[in-house]
């Protein structure tokens, strides 16, 4: 493959982290395959974003048009198809985000390209890339080949490709918008915010979850502070809801909310399957519990056996320090 493209993702005039995931993966692929790395930025009034990306990517190709302001799959697919038309050997990388889920499959058909979604890694065999992705309730890994295809679209699991922010300046090139005046069949109307004050733990990337192990503690400030420091949300297991300490929509579990975070910090949670059943997508799972035999330690990646009151304030403090 001669070229690696990364589609930058933005929302409400801000770049999303999936862009950096894509550049991180793109760097690996470009190096391994000896290909050129280009970031595609489609949007409206995105000069600042282009410059930001150009700090980390050798080439940024910009298409600026009001119809591309939001990730409406119809103009996006048309634009990308027009840009990539005529190129015969490339891989297009995008984050596996909710916006891009709308774009990637249709785009792969328009490009006559092979598609693999939600990849967590790559392997290389005889100079050809293969994607690693997860299947069967995300429990099994699969190695997927593109059957020799030269045009490939891949979406990436967020967080699977750590980004090195080291700067290496690149260029910005603006190309004309290939969209015609043909009216769109799919029209963006607007964003709709979730109910105010209503935390959606299912969408959180970082979750601090508390369980029965918090004991008779009814003051949750310390846990909220930790969650804030980590940039995450506070969730819980059922006993906390039963005690009316947190509302039901913060309960993780089969009877509560299913969550798919990157990081799950389980504080005083024993690890009953009903609770674990609500944690999807194999996050980094860290458990703190005073019982060394708590089953949560069997599934967690890291564990600390200690009383919560000894760990939580110290952890909050350390994290605040590290963020400075």
């Amino acid at each position, binding site marked *: 493959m001669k070229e690696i493209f990364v589609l930058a993702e933005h929302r409400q005039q801000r770049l999303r982290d999936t862009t950096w995931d894509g550049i991180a993966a793109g760097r690996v692929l470009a190096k391994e395959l000896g290909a050129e790395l280009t970031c595609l930025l489609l949007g409206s009034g995105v000069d600042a974003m282009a410059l930001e990306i150009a700090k980390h990517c050798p080439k940024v190709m910009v298409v600026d048009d009001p119809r591309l302001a939001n990730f409406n799959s119809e103009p996006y697919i048309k634009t990308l198809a027009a840009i990539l038309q005529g190129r015969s050997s490339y891989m297009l990388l995008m984050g596996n985000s909710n916006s891009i889920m709308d774009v990637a499959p249709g785009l792969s058909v*328009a490009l006559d390209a092979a598609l693999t979604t939600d990849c967590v890694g790559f392997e290389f065999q005889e100079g050809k890339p293969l994607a690693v992705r997860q299947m069967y309730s995300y429990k099994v890994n699969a190695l997927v080949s593109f059957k020799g295809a030269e045009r490939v679209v891949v979406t990436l699991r967020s967080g699977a490709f750590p980004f090195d922010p080291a700067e290496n300046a690149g260029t910005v090139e603006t190309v004309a918008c290939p969209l015609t005046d043909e009216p769109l069949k799919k029209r963006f109307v607007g964003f709709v915010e979730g109910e105010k004050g209503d935390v959606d733990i299912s969408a959180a990337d970082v979750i601090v979850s508390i369980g029965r192990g918090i004991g008779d503690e009814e003051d949750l400030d310390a846990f909220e502070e930790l969650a804030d420091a980590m940039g995450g949300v506070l969730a819980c297991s059922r006993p906390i809801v039963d005690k009316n300490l947190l509302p039901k929509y913060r309960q993780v579990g089969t009877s509560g909310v299913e969550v798919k975070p990157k990081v799950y910090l389980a504080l005083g949670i024993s690890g009953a399957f009903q609770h674990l059943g609500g944690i999807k997508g194999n996050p980094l799972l860290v458990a703190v519990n005073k019982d060394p035999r708590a089953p949560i330690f069997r599934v967690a990646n890291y564990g600390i056996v200690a009383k919560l009151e000894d760990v939580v304030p110290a952890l909050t403090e350390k994290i605040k320090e590290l963020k400075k």
Partner: protein
Amino acid sequence: MDIIVCMKWTPDTSEADLAVDKKGMDIEKGDLDYDMNEWDRFAIEEAVRIKEKLGGKVTVVSVAPEEVEEVLRESLARGADEAFQLWDDACDGSDGYATAKVLAKFAQGRKFDLILTGTLADDDCAGQVGGMLAAMLGIPGATLVQKLDIADGTMTVLRELEAGLSEKLEIDLPAVVSVATGLNEPRFVSVRAVRKVASAEIPCVDLAALGLAGTDVGDAGARVRIEKVFLPPEGEGAEMIPGKPEEAAARLAAILKEKGGIS
């Protein structure tokens, strides 16, 4: 409003202990229970609700071997009017692309206003067939739809984005809508409801009838191939962080930072 619902027949792997089969190409499926893909249950419910409101017909199709009959019958009990199995042994080994081709061919041969499906399937977790199908049919598509309203030939949908945010879109019909779980509350199907449709015919449509060749589907028609499957390395358990609570906390903070747990 004539609606086609694409439903997948999937093994229930959420609670099961999975093992890789001898060839290493798939998991052992012998002991697994197959069922209607959870996401598609919501698509069928939505289709039936639209029909109940606006009239029309709901057709459910599945690209799956004959064992799918039970869940296709269940879809009739859920209120669908007809159900078809789209299958040929050559379809075995199809990827999302090959499957979308079969569905597109079926749809092209019929009158329809809307195609509904679930956004993801629990087995592949790929979320691609809906979008591909729309592109193949040359009509608009939308995934992760959490709300859907149809009035005067225009459809308004709410798509789920991250962190509680949604986007509202207007889409011309016909279109392919891939729904999110939770957009409705699927009805319960009682033993009686299934019995009422026990004698309904569920025809199998083969490749010839669809106008496809054996090479269009299966591994031959697929664009990607699973070369091997493997269980992710499973630790014996958590790596325990030793030391006094403050030391352990400091170490943990560093790990969290390294793994992106601080944002």
